[in-house]
């Protein structure tokens, strides 16, 4: 799934410019870091891609969908092709690890047997099968993040959005999470990840998109992150 932003701006009321005239093209299968200081517009960019917010100006299209013109009824179907991992995990506290992952497929009316097979697959992929009956509160931060990744993988998305997925994790756990994300990318999935973590960015030398004050100030393949 490719992403194309053309002259995209996002202005929050009353007059806060979160993104200004962004032109960006991300091809299918790329791994892109979105970097920048707090308030630079990283999360706004990702929220535009997931269509939680709409652009105030410009055209944002993802996988051929014009996000501004998209019908509300099409949004769930679009999102099923976009895996999302957030810094705060966004897991449902009342559900177990297994249920948190299974419900994404249940919402698509996937039969129970197939849900069970796929859920087992993705939980194994993130190495949490033995913790499948636990609730998010019983897991560590790293484990919760892995559950969120497993849930995002459940529908086999073509685009993976990760908003500071290592933000709350120690170095070792963050490295584990990154390994999973690289494995996902190696399978041909586009990954767009925002981060503050210089070590992670510099270690893998992927494409880097840097934002500052809502403006795109650098777009570099094999880039690094220096403050």
């Amino acid at each position, binding site marked *: 799934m490719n992403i194309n932003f053309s002259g995209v701006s996002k202005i929050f009321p009353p007059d806060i410019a979160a993104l200004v005239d962004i032109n960006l093209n991300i091809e299918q299968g790329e791994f892109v870091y979105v970097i920048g200081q707090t308030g630079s517009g990283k999360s706004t960019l990702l929220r535009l891609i997931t269509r939680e917010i709409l652009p105030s100006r410009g055209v944002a299209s993802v996988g051929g969908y014009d996000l501004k013109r998209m019908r509300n009824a099409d949004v769930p179907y679009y999102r099923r092709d976009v895996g999302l991992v957030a810094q705060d995990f966004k897991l449902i506290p009342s559900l177990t690890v297994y249920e948190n992952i299974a419900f994404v497929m*249940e919402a698509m009316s996937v039969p129970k047997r197939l849900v069970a097979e796929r859920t087992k697959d993705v939980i194994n992929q993130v190495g949490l099968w033995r913790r499948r009956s636990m609730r998010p509160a019983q897991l560590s931060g790293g484990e919760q993040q892995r559950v969120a990744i497993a849930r995002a993988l459940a529908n086999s998305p073509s685009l993976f959005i990760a908003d500071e997925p290592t933000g709350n994790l120690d170095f070792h756990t963050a490295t584990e999470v990154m390994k999973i994300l690289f494995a996902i990318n190696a399978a041909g999935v586009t990954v767009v990840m925002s981060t503050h973590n210089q070590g992670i960015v510099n270690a893998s030398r992927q494409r880097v998109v840097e934002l500052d004050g809502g403006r795109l100030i650098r777009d570099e393949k094999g880039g690094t992150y220096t403050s």
Partner: protein
Amino acid sequence: MTTLRYVLRDMWRLIVHQWVLGLLTLITAGVMLWILGVTSLLSLNMENLLAGLESELAVQAYLVKDNTLDVEAIARRIQELEYVYSIKTFSPSDSLAKLQQKMGSQSRALEMLGDNPIPYNFEIHVNSASDVEPLVEVLKAMPEVDDVVYAGLVVKRISALSRITSRAALVMFLLAVIITALVVYNTIHISLYSRREEIGIMYLVGATRAYIATPFVLEGTLLAFLGAVLAAAGIIAAYFPALELIRENLPLLTNIIITDKTVIWRFCALLAGFGATLGWVCSYLVVARFINSMTRPE
């Protein structure tokens, strides 16, 4: 079928998650729908009573004594009036015979009158009690009519009672509907609010609005339906013993009030259906509003 199973499971989770609130809603809805049911039954019985009395109401119109009158033509003209349900013509001889029959052993006193003094007359039945007064006005204005006899005060009182009962029943009905609707609306709103984060996550990972909304709508519908079933059970438990009491103490009324068990059972089924519909409408409104506001992109 798969979706239905998931949706029903989620509805059950919602009910279990907030079972105290659900129970309170069920009881409140039950009490309000019971009041609604009892008021409706009372109103139906009053209507029955009034209809029974109204069917007995008749206006007697006496024509002037004139052999040249076309009695049949006058009867047709009266029959065409909108208030008239039926009209029966009595000749002077018929009327006298009827009077003699009514008077029984005292009928010989009528022989003292000499010639039959009773003119042609009509017994007119109206559609409802409220039609009597305007009909009398029309009849009195007709030159062929000499006199009009009717139970004026009774008619007025029955009309007034009918109006009051109808209005009181309507007010009670509306009150019960509004309170039940508000209770269901609030319960579902609380349920939605307590799960707003979950709803947001579900929408974000690709659940459709319908999939998210249906368990909440079903919860409201089920609670109101169960409340209505509770109300129906309360009505059945109260109505039939009350009927027995009336039979023992006021047997005359048993011909007028509703005693047919089938009618009462049907009424209760209707009440249950009404409760479910009310619950569905309220839940749908609150869920649609809430989910629309939550899923609207900024």
